């Protein structure tokens, strides 16, 4: 019992920290007293591995559990997911990086530095926005960039400025449509040490990203009368509702609130609510409530601690997620991650490209860094994610190194170095 207990603990600690457990097992095996014990112990360990890995994998994995594990845990699926977590220290994970425009390259550099200092084994595949329209994508993003994201399934995107002009799609729209990014996840939490008027914010906004009011279907009926069509489909609403509840469950969140205006837009938001209701029934241990959007806005500015996870259609999501970003300190500190079908995750910094401070080493890399942390959590590299996250929080909380937008005087490089020192 004692020996298996120790293996148990080692295994758990290994799994949770994401390190390679092969090394641990080898060490344990060498310390063994007699070789005869090896075989049954191996079997025991395998059984342990199956059950514990399955249990933990379900908890740690984000939206991929439904694909990897299926509804009931299968041992092979558990091994795949466990193997993925183990691969971090041996084979680097490839991820696409879009530095973007303006301050993009500086903050992307900052992210690379911090990740290297934290021993994150990620192989960055950098792509820049082209200078001319690529006919295959009908935008400034090249076909190769899109293919790269589709292949690696993770990416990090800096701010991109859509050039003004006609005849091409906006860059964000291109990414969204081609990669089928259906949910935008934005966690908003008060940063300890950076005081705003709201200190107890800890919520996550999950916004449907493909349809709703932003379908872009407008036309002029007669001169002076314009119609814009808002579309809500069962498929998209179910998708985002499923993701929201899964996210709540895997991150240990207690409550999901669906935001709507179904008292006025009865059929459209009514359909959205129906889908949320259906999904809520499958998760009886997560509290579920429905809040009308105007009530939600008011409650958010009066008492943001009332909310936990918010799921909403496109337009409300846009407004509410920016409102929540404002509560915690602005877009310069807000991470964000777009989730697509087949487990694609594209973390991005939602602030603008700030061309006026580009190249001056004044930019605040926090948003891109926190988005990178979200990306790491999605890849199950939770130990490094936690390390980097605490380093960022501590650096900001200390207050010695702060960039200009937080009221300090440090440069980007100083701030980055301070974070690396805190690791």
């Amino acid at each position, binding site marked *: 019992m004692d020996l298996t207990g120790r293996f148990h603990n080692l295994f758990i600690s290994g799994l949770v920290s994401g390190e390679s457990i092969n090394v641990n097992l080898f060490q344990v095996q060498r310390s063994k007293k007699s070789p005869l014990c090896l075989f049954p112990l191996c079997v025991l360990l395998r059984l342990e591995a199956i059950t514990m890995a399955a249990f933990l994998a379900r908890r740690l994995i984000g939206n991929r559990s439904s694909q990897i594990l299926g509804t009931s845990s299968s041992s092979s699926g558990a091994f795949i997911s466990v193997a993925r977590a183990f691969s971090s220290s041996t084979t680097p994970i490839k991820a696409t990086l879009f530095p973007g425009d303006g301050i993009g390259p500086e903050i992307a550099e900052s992210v690379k530095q911090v990740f290297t200092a934290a021993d994150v084994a990620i192989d960055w595949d950098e792509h820049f926005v082209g200078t001319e329209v690529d006919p295959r994508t009908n935008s400034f993003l090249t076909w190769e960039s899109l293919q790269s994201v589709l292949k690696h399934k993770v990416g990090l995107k800096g701010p991109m400025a859509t050039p003004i002009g006609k005849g091409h799609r906006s860059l964000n729209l291109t990414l969204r449509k081609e990669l089928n990014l259906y949910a935008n996840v934005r966690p908003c939490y008060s940063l300890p040490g950076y005081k705003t*008027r*709201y200190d107890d914010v800890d919520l996550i906004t999950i916004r449907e990203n493909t349809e709703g*009011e*932003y379908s*872009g279907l*407008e*036309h*002029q009926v007669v*001169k*002076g*009368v*314009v*119609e*814009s*069509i*808002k*579309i*809500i*489909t*069962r*498929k998209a609403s179910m998708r985002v509702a499923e993701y929201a509840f899964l996210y709540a469950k895997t991150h240990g969140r207690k409550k999901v609130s669906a935001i709507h*205006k*179904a*008292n*006025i*837009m*009865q*059929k*459209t938001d*009514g*359909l959205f*609510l129906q889908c949320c209701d259906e999904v809520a029934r499958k998760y009886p241990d997560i509290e579920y409530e*429905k809040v*009308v*959007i*105007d*009530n939600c*806005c*008011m*409650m*958010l*500015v*009066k008492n943001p601690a009332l909310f936990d996870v918010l799921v909403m259609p496109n*337009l409300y999501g*846009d*407004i*509410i*997620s*920016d*409102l929540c*970003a*404002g*509560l915690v300190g*602005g*877009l310069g500190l807000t991470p964000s991650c777009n989730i697509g079908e087949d487990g694609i995750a594209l973390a991005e910094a939602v602030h603008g490209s700030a061309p006026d401070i580009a190249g001056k080493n004044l930019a605040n890399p926090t948003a891109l860094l926190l988005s990178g942390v979200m990306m790491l959590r999605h890849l199950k590299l939770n130990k490094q994610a936690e390390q980097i996250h605490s380093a960022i929080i501590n650096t900001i909380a200390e207050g010695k190194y702060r960039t200009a937008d937080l009221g300090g005087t440090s440069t980007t490089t100083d701030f980055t170095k301070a974070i690396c020192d805190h690791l």
Partner: protein
Amino acid sequence: MSRRSLTLLKNLARNANGSGIQTRSVTYMPRPGDGAPRAVTLIPGDGIGPLVTNAVEQVMEAMHAPIFFEKYDVHGEMSRMPPEVMESIRKNKVCLKGGLKTPVGGGVSSLNVQLRKELDLFASLVNCFNLPGLPTRHENVDIVVIRENTEGEYAGLEHEVVPGVVESLKVITKFCSERIAKYAFEYAYLNNRKKVTAVHKANIMKLADGLFLESCREVAKKYPSITYNEIIVDNCCMQLVAKPEQFDVMVTPNLYGNLVANTAAGIAGGTGVMPGGNVGADHAVFEQGASAGNVGKDKIVLENKANPVALLLSSAMMLRHLQFPSFADRLETAVKKVIAEGKCRTKDLGGTSTTQEVVDAVIAKLD
């Protein structure tokens, strides 16, 4: 000499007690017969509606205001406004409304929206300001949100294309956008406001909100003394939370107006204290400025903890609309004194009083 200084000191003391809220000594010259009592339609409504409208009735009674109420019983579940109510409003031209609860989910279209469409009340106004004595996270807030009330996303044109796919039409017309822009600038002009901000999402909804912005820009040219700027709605919400003092008058289409009004009300003290109303060319309906769904909250009704301040301040606006400015001033001063004192506050403002206690305090403070 000492007698004069005594009265001066007494005046100072009185004014100091009112914490800066002074009664005006301005003389209005009414026409003969202006003091005849005016009829106002009163719709108590659902939930907390009857409580707060009762409060207004009591205060009007105590002030001997030249107003008498024609009460009508309307509930949110009714499919249409009863025709006698519409008749009464058309005759009196002024209405005071508690809240009408709109059932969520379907079947019944909102009575509030119906009322606005039938009477063509195209402008909805919410005045959000910091009340002295009420602590909030934001200072220096004084925003008026003017929201287009008839079209936009609330046109109510929805249909199911195929099972599982629903469409909703948002309609923006030049006619409605122009008149709301004109109203907003006129309001700013008549109330000595310096800035009008148009809230939109024209980077995404280029044609619809683009048309709205065009109309605002055209009207702005006719008021060169008023600063005009535009802001995208998500940025606007962020700025409201971070720096609300930069906003003065905001003009918005229907849906954004709802959100912005509720956000602004929340930062300035809550929907329990913000006055507002709906106004059209011929009629005006006064109600609680930003109602965030508390109408149906039964717990508040049972414990009589609804906040009457919003409807009291709206009725002060109504008195001014009916051209009884000194009654309006008296009412507003009394309400502000009660809030500033801080002894009598309902639960949403952090106190423990009931509705009746607040009403009694206001009546006591009327001079």
